[in-house]
C-alpha cells in the first residue's frame, strides 16, 4: 500500500476496517456458537453469549463485558465517522485544496443521521401527523376534525399552545392574523370544557416532545461540528507524524491517535459558551419532557387509584420533617437530663438506630 495516493490508501483501510469488524465479531460469535444468540448479528450474539457465559459469576465482570460489547458498537460508529471523514478530506488534501468545507458538510449530514437514530431509539420518531391520528382516535370523534385543523395550523409551532389559545397557530387557524375579526378572542375560550386541563397536560407533553426533538437536533449538530473539528485536529497530528517520517501501521495505533487528539479538541469545544448553551437547552428539554410525561401518567394513576410520584414526595417530605423533629426532641431530652460522669453526652438517639 505504501506510496499509493491517500484515496487508494484510505479505500483499502476502510475495506480492511470493515473486514476487521466482521472477522473480529464473527470469530467471537463463532467462539460462542454454542451459547444463546449465535444466530443473530455478531455484536448481539457476542453480547448475549457473554451474558450467558458469565452468568453466575460476578456483577463487575458482567458489566465489563457489557461495556466492551456496547462500547464496541459505539466505537465502530465513531471509527466509521473518522474513516469516512478521512475519505472526504483526502482528495482535497492531495490536491492541496481547502478540505474543511466538505468535512463540515459531511459532519452536518452525520448529525442529522445520528439524531434520527437517537429519535428512533427513544421512540420519538412519530411526527405530528401520526400524533394527530392517535389523538383523534383516543378523543371523542367530534374532536377529530378540530385536531386535524389544529395540527395543520400549528405545524410550525406548538400544538399545545395552539389548543390552549392565544398563539400564532390558532390565530392562523381562525384567519385572524392582522384582522380585527369578530372571532377575535375565540382562542381564549376553554376548548374542551371539563376535560380541558387533562387535554392541556397531554398537549404540553406534545410540546415537550417537539422541543426535545428541536434541541436534540441542535445539540447533536453542535456535537458533530465538534467531531469535525476533532478530525481537523487529527489531520494536523497526522501531518506531524508524516513530517517526522513516521508511519501508522496498526488500527489500534490509529485509534489511539484519534482518541487522544479528539479528546483534546472536544474539550476546547465543550468549554465554549455556545456549546454549553446547546447542551443545557437539550438537557432542559429532556427534563421538561420527563416532567410533562409524569404529569400525564399521574392522571392515569389517579384514575386507577394508585399513588402518584407527587403524593409519595409529599409523604417523603413529611417523614423528613418528622425525623428532624424527633432529633430535636432527643437533643432537648439529653440537654435536660442529669449529666452522667465522664464522656461526652450523645446528641443522637440509639447507637445503632436502624434505618427505616
Amino acid at each position: 500500500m505504501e506510496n499509493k495516493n491517500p484515496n487508494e490508501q484510505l479505500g483499502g483501510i476502510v475495506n480492511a476496517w470493515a473486514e476487521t469488524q466482521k472477522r473480529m465479531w464473527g470469530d467471537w460469535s463463532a467462539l460462542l456458537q454454542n451459547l444463546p444468540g449465535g444466530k443473530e448479528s455478531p455484536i448481539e450474539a457476542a453480547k448475549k453469549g457473554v451474558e450467558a457465559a458469565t452468568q453466575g459469576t460476578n456483577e463487575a465482570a458482567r458489566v465489563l463485558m457489557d461495556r466492551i460489547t456496547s462500547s464496541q458498537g459505539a466505537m465502530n460508529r465513531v471509527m466509521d465517522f473518522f474513516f469516512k471523514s478521512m475519505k472526504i478530506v483526502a482528495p482535497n488534501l492531495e490536491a492541496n485544496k481547502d478540505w474543511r468545507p466538505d468535512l463540515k458538510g459531511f459532519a452536518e449530514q452525520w448529525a442529522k443521521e445520528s439524531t434520527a437514530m437517537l429519535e428512533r431509539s427513544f421512540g420519538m420518531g412519530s411526527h405530528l401527523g401520526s400524533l394527530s391520528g392517535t389523538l383523534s382516535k383516543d378523543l371523542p370523534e367530534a374532536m377529530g376534525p378540530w385536531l386535524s385543523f389544529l395540527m395543520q395550523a400549528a405545524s410550525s409551532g406548538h400544538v399545545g399552545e395552539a389548543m390552549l389559545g392565544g398563539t400564532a397557530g390558532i390565530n392562523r387557524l381562525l384567519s385572524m392574523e392582522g384582522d380585527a375579526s369578530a372571532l377575535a378572542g375565540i382562542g381564549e375560550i376553554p376548548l374542551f370544557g371539563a376535560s380541558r386541563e387533562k387535554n392541556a397536560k397531554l398537549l404540553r407533553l406534545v410540546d415537550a416532545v417537539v422541543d426535545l426533538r428541536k434541541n436534540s437536533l441542535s445539540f447533536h449538530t453542535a456535537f458533530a461540528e465538534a467531531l469535525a473539528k476533532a478530525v481537523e485536529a487529527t489531520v494536523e497530528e497526522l501531518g506531524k507524524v508524516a513530517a517526522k517520517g513516521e508511519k501508522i501501521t496498526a488500527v489500534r495505533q490509529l485509534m489511539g491517535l484519534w482518541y487522544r487528539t479528539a479528546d483534546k479538541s472536544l474539550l476546547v469545544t465543550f468549554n465554549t459558551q455556545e456549546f454549553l448553551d446547546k447542551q443545557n437547552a437539550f438537557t432542559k428539554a429532556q427534563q421538561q419532557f420527563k416532567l410533562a410525561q409524569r404529569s400525564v401518567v399521574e392522571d392515569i394513576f389517579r384514575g386507577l387509584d394508585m399513588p402518584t410520584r407527587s403524593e409519595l414526595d409529599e409523604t417523603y417530605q413529611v417523614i423528613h420533617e418528622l425525623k428532624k423533629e424527633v432529633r430535636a426532641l432527643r437533643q432537648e431530652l439529653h440537654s435536660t437530663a442529669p449529666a452522667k460522669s465522664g464522656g461526652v453526652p450523645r446528641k443522637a438517639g440509639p447507637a445503632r438506630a436502624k434505618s427505616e
Partner: protein
Amino acid sequence: MFSFPIQILPADIAAETAALNAKLAKGINNLTNLTDDDIDIGSTPKDVIFEQDGIKVYHYHALVEPSKIMKTPLLIVPPLINGYEVADLQPDRSLVRNLLNQGIDVFLNDWGYPRQVDKYRNMDDYLNGYLDDTVDFIRKQQGVDKIALFGICQGGAMSTTYATLNPDKISHLVLTVSPIDFDAYKANHKPHEGLMFTMGADADVEKMVAVHGNVPATVLNESFMMASPFILNYGKYADVIDILDDRAALQNFLRMEKWLFGGPDAVGQMFKEFIRDFLKGNKLVKGTLEVGGRKVDLKELTIPILNIFAEKDHIVPPPCTVALGKHVGSKDYTEFAIATGHIGIYTGGLAQKVLAPTVGNWMRERGA
C-alpha cells in the same frame, strides 16, 4: 505533497485481529472464573460502630501494636457522590491500610446509598445532624474531647465547614483534593481543567432534582466522562482487551470499574444546596455560607490544617484547593502536592508511598 502516514496493510489488520481474538477468548475464560469475592473492594477489616438512616460509621482494626496507636482518632469523610471504597480499593492500594500502618486510629463515615425517601436531606441534616452525631459518638466512645477530620473531595468541603462551626470538637483537619474556591480555576483556565464545575455552574439543578429526586450516579458519571469522552468511553475498553488474559491486572481493573460505576445517587436537596451555595455561589470563600442558620466564617478555622492536592487534578484543579490558605484563620497551615490525578491520589502507586506517611508525620508532629 502531503505524504499520507497511515500505512495499514490488510495483512497487519488480520494479524492484529487474530491476536485480539486470542486475548478475548482467554479473557472470557478469566471473566467466567472470577467471582464477586475476587472483585472485593473496601475489604480492610472493620466494625460498624454506629448506624443511622443507612449511614454507617466504621472503625478499622489496628495494624500496629496498641502502644504505637495515636491517641487522636481520625474520621475519614468521603464525598456524598462517590463510594467510600476509593479509600480502600484493594489491599495494596488502600489509603485506610496505609493510615493504619502509620499508627492512626481510623474511622470512616460511609454515607451509603440514598433512596427516594431520603431526597429531602439537606446540608444542615448532613453537617449538623449525621456528621455531628458521628463525631460525638466517636468522642464519647474513645473518651476524647476532639478528633481529627480527613476530607475526601466534596467530603473535604464538608469537613472544612463542619470544623469551622465546631472548633470544640475537631483538633486537626486534613484535606485531600477538596474544592474550596470554585472560581479559582477560571483565572488561568485550561480546557481540560474544571469542566464539571463549568457545566455545573450552567446546569438547572432545580429542574434536575424535580425530575430525578436524587440525581442518578449515571448522570454524574456522564459529566465526569465528558472530560475525556473517547478515552473513557471507548479507548479504555479497547485497551482492557490487552489485560483480559492477566487475571491479577483484570481484577484490579474491575475493582476500579466497580467503584467508579457503583457509586450512590446524589441526594436531591443536598445536591441542590451544594451546587447553589458552594459551586455557583462560592459562598464558603465569600464568607456568606450559612448552615442551619449559622454563618460559616473561615477566619474562625484556627486548628492545624494539612491541605493535600494532586498536581494533575482536572476534576478539582489545584487552584480551587489551595485557595483555602488565603481564607482561614489558622497559623498552622501546610500544603502538600502529589504528582498524580484526582483518583490517583488514593489509588495510584506514588500516593501509596507518600500520602499516608505525610499525614502520619504531620499528625505526630502536632501531638496527635
